[in-house]
């Protein structure tokens, strides 16, 4: 294990307990983004979170998108960064950019 917690194991555990789970994964980074590609976060429909995809800057927005993906079943590719209009809502203070892929475990 290379992280503080084993996100995939947590996701499996939540599923086994009957929760609906989505996984968010950093798939591309530019500049001084805080977490490397492959960093992951698991989210449940009920709002539980494990892992991280940034230094805490975008986790809230990713969790919201994850809950939408759990409901729709449709994966999403999210862009975050200073050149993105969303930067005004949830941006990366460090000036980096990241792409995050969100998929349901189903």
């Amino acid at each position, binding site marked *: *294990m290379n992280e503080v917690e084993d996100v*995939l194991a947590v996701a499996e555990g939540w599923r086994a307990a009957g929760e609906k789970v989505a996984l968010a994964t950093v798939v*591309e980074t530019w500049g001084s983004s805080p977490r*490397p*590609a492959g960093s992951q976060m698991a989210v449940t429909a009920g709002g539980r979170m494990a892992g991280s995809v940034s230094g805490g800057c975008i986790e809230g927005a990713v969790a919201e998108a994850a809950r939408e993906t759990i409901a729709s079943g449709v994966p999403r590719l999210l862009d975050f960064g200073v050149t993105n209009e969303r930067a005004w809502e949830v941006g990366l203070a460090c000036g980096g950019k990241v*792409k995050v*892929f969100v*998929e349901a*475990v189903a």
Partner: protein
Amino acid sequence: MTPDLLAALQAARAAKRPVVLATRLPDGAQYLLPDPKAPAALAVAAAAALHGEASASVALGGETWFLHVHNPPPRLAIIGAVHIAQALAPFAAQTGFGVTVIDPRGAFATSERFPGVEISRDWPDEAMARFAPDARSAVVTLTHDPKLDDPALDAALRSEAFYIGALGSRKTHAARLKRLRELGHDDAALSRIHGPVGLDIEAVTAPEIAVSILAEIIAARRGAAMGQKAAA
């Protein structure tokens, strides 16, 4: 991701098999490689990602695939179930190393002193043969006892271990190098040994020394300048 694929990925990780989870963006089609059913170009790219230990998005034939590398943890052999080892073993585990503590002295190598850590009570030559260090392994000797440290260093020098460290003063280290030279290791080989071990942070306590050793191991693994061996 299907639950079956997640289970297969977790099984591979538990078995310490290197795998790559390839995900097509943005539709989420996936392969767990190696997989004979995967396209050849994807298999080649996945093998390269595994080798480079770097997850990344790649463009293949007009498609974008995210290659998520799941290599087994790098490994650390600690020779000497001593006080510094008691700090180093959990620190190293937290930074992602699979740790094995080697010490034939039963009073030292106990699970009470090393909870949850893999312990080998074999003599270091046998224990190191079993540990089989590779290019993703680090080896640190901490016993101060040539009977225990030397066979482990001998084995480490005959491997591709990315880091070899030996605790001991400059004087101790000079004597150690002399003994290892008699075992047939030349200066180039001996220059791989970090000794005195650890980054120079004026560490005093056992946990501080453990931090200095682990920082040096990480620096060597990540290619940082301070992890390179300085001229002796």
